């Protein structure tokens, strides 16, 4: 088999990436602007021995893919803002039961029903913090149709490696635009590690991750969303077990934040440095292309866990300019890791930042002294 090229939109590319990664179960609920992912999976999964099901809501979609994952399949759902809010309950369940799943959020304008057909990046903090309790997640952000495919594959591998929900935090711009894409005949698959005989189902290995006791394999595991001991049994009264469990689950991801970092670092000697992810990366790259060797750029393909050490690559940085299609959600995270002044460039309403708008932010950044400055476009 050879690689195939095609001309696809981002949502379809995401579905193809999932299939290439071996995803064989998809549960979803229609919602703009993510629906093409579900439609493609409905068309393709039965042809590769998989199952597609349209559930009654997004609560059920998230639940069904968790159930499917425990049955041993790579599973995925796709949604957008309001549906993402409904999934928060079972996202918490998946993190606490260490269930590998992939959740695609094709972000649109919020809050509430907001702008169903318009792009946004307003769910980045919800993705990190939206379910109750302390936990950590992995979130990826593609900025091209090719990356919709490649990062979906990567999402499945990370989900299995870390036994955690992984989010593909894309947006309407990337989900709906068409570009040329290479569909690889072979993609790298890193399978989840099956529970070994004699190993306790919730006891961590040297990476802080327990073996996965796939249902129906004779492991006879008990999986619960209650605080549990290493056998998997409820232990809700023990402060010690609870704290150890929560800290271990956070650390198994955060300790690897720089190891799994997936970033582009461009012009590290520059004084004015853009930080972006997703669709705004396209505008930043346009500006860098039109003004060679002028600006630095940190593009994040993995946003969570935040790869803080990559900020250190920009040794001469006088300002970080952060265009986001929200009011500065990742800028807040950057602020926690640096004393270099930050220029926040929010854009709401659905349109992508234009190159001219980023130049306006550059002018502000040239003289910025305050720790955080917002540019009103």
């Amino acid at each position, binding site marked *: 088999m050879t690689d195939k090229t095609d*001309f696809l939109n981002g949502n379809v590319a995401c579905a193809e990436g999932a299939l290439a990664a071996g995803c064989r179960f998809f549960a979803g609920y229609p919602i703009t602007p993510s629906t093409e992912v579900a439609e493609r999976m409905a068309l393709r999964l039965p042809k590769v021995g998989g199952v597609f099901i349209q559930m009654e809501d997004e609560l059920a979609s998230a639940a069904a893919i968790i159930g499917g994952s425990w049955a041993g399949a790579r599973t995925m759902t796709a949604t957008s803002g309001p549906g993402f809010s409904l999934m928060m309950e079972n996202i918490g369940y998946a993190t606490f039961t260490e269930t590998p799943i992939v959740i695609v959020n094709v972000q649109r304008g919020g809050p509430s029903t907001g702008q169903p057909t*318009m792009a946004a990046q307003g769910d980045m903090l919800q993705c990190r913090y939206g379910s109750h309790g302390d936990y950590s997640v992995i979130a990826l952000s593609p900025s091209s149709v090719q990356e919709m495919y490649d990062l979906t594959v990567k999402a499945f591998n990370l989900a299995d490696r870390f036994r955690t929900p992984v989010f593909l935090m894309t947006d309407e*711009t990337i989900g*709906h*635009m*068409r570009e040329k894409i290479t569909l690889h005949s072979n993609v790298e698959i890193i399978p989840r590690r099956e529970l070994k005989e004699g190993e306790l189902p919730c006891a961590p290995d040297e990476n802080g991750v327990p073996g996965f006791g796939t249902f129906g394999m004779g492991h006879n595991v008990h999986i619960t969303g209650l605080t549990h001991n290493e056998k998997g049994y409820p232990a809700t009264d023990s402060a010690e077990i609870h704290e150890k469990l929560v800290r271990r689950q956070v650390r198994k991801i955060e300790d690897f934040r720089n190891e799994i970092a997936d970033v582009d670092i461009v012009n590290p000697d520059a004084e004015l440095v853009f930080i972006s992810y997703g669709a705004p990366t396209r505008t930043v790259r*346009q500006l860098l292309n039109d003004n060679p060797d002028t600006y630095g750029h940190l593009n994040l393909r993995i946003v969570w866990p935040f790869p803080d050490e990559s900020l250190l690559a920009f040794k001469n940085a006088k300002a970080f300019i952060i265009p986001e299609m929200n009011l500065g959600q990742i800028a807040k995270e950057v602020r926690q890791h640096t004393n270099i002044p930050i220029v926040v460039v929010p854009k709401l309403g659905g349109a992508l930042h234009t190159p001219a708008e980023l130049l306006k932010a550059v002018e502000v950044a040239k003289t910025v002294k305050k720790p955080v400055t917002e540019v009103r476009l």
Partner: protein
Amino acid sequence: MKSEIRFSGLGGQGIITAAVILGRAAALYGGKHVVQTQSYGPEARGGASASAVIISDDPIYYPKVTDPDVYAIMSQEAYNKYGSHVKNDAVMLLDPGYVTSRPACRFFEVPATAEAKSQLGKTVFANVIMLGGILEATGIVSYDALEHAVLDSVPKGTEENNKRALAIGQELVRSQL
């Protein structure tokens, strides 16, 4: 070399399909860098429809069309929205059956809907006639590339009529050159 092409008209005219076919032709059979986008939302349900293609020799970063070089306009409403303030060196193809205004730039009248109905029996071929016209007016892709992309995209059994549609569009523009 970079070109921006804007398609606009009414829902059901194949405005988005036309942009996807042109994008596919340039990307898969023309060796170009291409980004195709379209309007979604209430305006894409039944009423107005708009789509765009950027075709470039170099990688395309900013994916949105800003100042198109080529327009294909198939409704007066679309003309009012996109066609009334075009740059002077743009080229516009318009369907005179729907559009009464005429732009300041170079333009071609391509009665795609009427010709599709009279020559091919169905108005569904109008968008491919428009594509034939764009090919003739701009040479933005090769004929072979466009034909490939059309044949990839259309239902089985309609290949011959679609090839004829391309030729009709080419001829309508050629006669005005």
